[in-house]
């Protein structure tokens, strides 16, 4: 067998190995409802902040700087409470139009490990809010 063939075989073997390892790492995007049907599984939720009916962001750094709780609602109308144990609310959370939340669903709340905020973009915004005061 030629050396090139050996090299190619090894490369193929590595590639297959990597593919398998990647596949086992993957997670999925879910709706809140489908997440509730698989509690404990690591998933991604796409939702927005739910501030209806007096729901609000709970964060008191004096009591505990590592505890944040808020409510979300997704496009299918599913709602859930979210608990995040890594610190303060991300910048612009109130203004966000969409959030990607990574974590696990439990009976009482979604235990979130990472929050990615998507803000209304100033580039696609059609109308400028201009305040005439400096």
């Amino acid at each position, binding site marked *: 067998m030629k050396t090139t063939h050996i090299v190619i075989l090894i490369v193929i073997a590595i590639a297959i190995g990597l593919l398998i390892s990647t596949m086992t790492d*993957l997670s999925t995007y879910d709706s809140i409802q489908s997440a509730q049907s698989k509690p404990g599984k690591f998933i991604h939720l796409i939702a927005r902040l739910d501030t209806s009916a007096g729901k609000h962001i709970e964060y008191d750094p004096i009591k505990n*700087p590592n*505890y944040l709780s808020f409510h979300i609602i997704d496009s299918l109308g599913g709602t859930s409470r979210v608990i995040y144990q890594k610190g303060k609310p991300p910048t612009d959370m109130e203004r966000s139009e969409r959030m990607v939340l990574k974590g696990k669903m439990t009976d009482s709340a979604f235990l979130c490990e990472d929050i990615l905020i998507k803000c209304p973009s100033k580039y696609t915004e059609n*109308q400028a809010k*201009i305040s*005439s005061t400096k």
Partner: protein
Amino acid sequence: MPYTGEHLIPGKIGHFLLILSLISSLLATVSYYKAVISKDLNLQRSWKRIARSAFLVEILSVIGIFFVLYFIISNHYFEYKYVWQHSNLALPMQYILSCFWEGQEGSFLLWSFWHCVLGGIIILREKEWEPSVMTLISFMQFALATMVIGLYFFDYKIGSNPFVLMREEGMLSPSQFPIGFTSDGELRTDYLSFVRDGNGLNPLLQNYWMTIHPPVLFLGFASTIVPFAFVIAGLWKKNYDGWIAAARPWALFSAGILGLGIMMGAAWAYESLTFGGYWAWDPVENASLVPWMVLVCGIHTLMAYKHTGHSLRATILFFLLQFLLIVYSTFLTRSGILGDTSVHAFTDLGMNTQLLLFLMIFVLPALLLYAIRYKSIPAPASEEKFSSREFWLFVGSLLFFISAVYIIGKTSLPVINKLFGTKYAPGQDIEYSYNKVLILFSFVTGLLTALTQYLRYKHSPRSLILKSLAVPTLISLLVSLSISIWGNIHYYKYGYGFLTAIHLTIFSTVYIVIANGMYIFSALKGKMIKAGASIAHLGFGLMLLGILISSSKKEIISWNTSGIMVNFGEGSTENAAENLTLVKDIATDMGKYMVTYLGDSTHPLDPKQFFKVHFQSKTNKETFTLYPDAFVNYKGNEQLIANPDSKHYWHKDVFTYITSLPNPEKNKDTATFQQKIMKKGDTLFYSKGFYILESITSQTQRTGLPLQQGDSVFTAQITVHAKDSSKYQAEPVLLIRGNSIFPVPDTVLSQSLIFAFTGAEEKGIRLGVKETNSILQYITLKAYQFPAINLVWLGVIIMVLGFFIATYNKVLKNKRNQIQ
């Protein structure tokens, strides 16, 4: 209808220059193309003359656009959309350039500008290859010019013009900007006098790195087209290796500058953003890393080809791919497709079709040409020997290439979802999913980087290998073993397998450094001009070693151990309590330090607020003060946007940033002192427990009291028992100076209690007690310790230096050959 106060002339000039640039780059493309395909020498010459003039016009118009855009930003002409969106009056002068390339349009212009510079150098220097290489560069300029042209082609908008006015874009509306409109909904002719300030630069980008990182990175991006263009020219003219000598310094320069640009981004992330590190495998980072890796593969296989005739097909493919990946990464980061996976991708400008076209117009023809020519690219029938340098150069490059493919494959997940309608998301631990694979690649490529230089081309005798490698191998073993044994690298988070991989890779990176370092002196006799490769390898090894040590020994030192935080709340299992709250003037235990928040300060010209945090080592006398800063209430935005500060040591950094501040609105002090009369031994209740007056003495343990000679003090010793069964001591003091008395209150911060000893009477002492929240001036912060971080930066600098030395050496070599 004329509007007062508008400055329309610069915009008109800008528009004109944009169109001029589009036309001249198209003309340059066509005439260079004609110059390549013409058989007649005279015709060739005249086409080339036209092409050169056209490219000169292109250079001038791009520079002109640059100046006009700079002019309108620095003069704050807010009638222009780009100026309003990206700048404001308060912005310090040094960030004007940052505004320039904050938006997509400006960064396309920056890219285009570097092509002009590089194109100019090619016209001046690369006589033989000028027409074919410049055909591609001119075409690229044309493609970039369409990105900023902002014309409508039927109903489809092409590009986004940086010189449009806000009112033209329909950005002004009676609902959002009522004062600028008349009662019948017409825009007032003096509307501009109400647009007093712009939207401003994203505060996260108000940083000196934003001024220097994009130009360097875009020079890196721009330079990758040169090796690509040479390869295409070679394939096109079936001159499969004539381009090599000319393209080599360009490829080396490109690898150096692109590497520098990428790592400047990492330094920025580390120094000024609160990612808590320098690399996060974010898609945007990956998208520029991968082309660099493929370019480095190409440079290595080119070496093999140069000396033995092997690996030409691979080299050509690598040089094609590195540029195509740059174009692909442009598509990824600018189309908004990464929206859900990246923190810092550009936002969607609505040009996705155009970006896709931009991608395809380079990818498809280039790969098609490669496929057509593949068979005719020379490849020797003989096999490389196992003991030859070229064989291992090829294997190493291949492994490096596979790891690049792995990274870009994972990064492309959103694209795969889009293509196949799937809904896959990155896994739970993204960083580890990259790290666990790449550490193995680093181990093997590390070994090869150390060994391969000691091999000879064609065949290396066994005795020679053993003789020359014995010493470096032995030294590396000793050094890496001592790091492993005494370095305290115990990264158990992912088990023993990963820890073993870390230690193995420490060996291989130390091996790179030592083997390459010794090679400079043993084989190259210390001739630095020839040692570019070894220096670059040495730097690469140092960088990898720094990455390994700093990542595996990165330590969060702000573990919350203060009494202030009570419970973790529901769902708390393994989650780290990484944020520590520091109450003003109270020294808090944090790792090896006692840390005190001393106060904050602002500067009238700086919208940032600086926080003074004092560190006192527990083990020695060392003290230092850090000033992390933050934008507080930036434009009515409730959140704070923080920048870290670090204490740099030669062997580690202590790194801290603010994560939370009290909200002054919420904590107004409305409580008042309540007077109590207490005798020794009395117990009283408060909302969270009770307190006992233990004794009254005429001494005090408290320090920092404003005592003078002749003062007398009385101290009430109070023990506070909180509900959660924690105990605190308080010592309010009554200070008597002459005929006056001064109560010096004492606070129990975690219980929000203030005691004031205000006097004494028959029934007992008078004690004022207040329960409040507003006494707490505090900050919440995170602090890390990064050991060996400087190795990373040192490694990068050495590596880039190595690339530049190699570039210079090849330029000299080409010059010598020309003279001969």
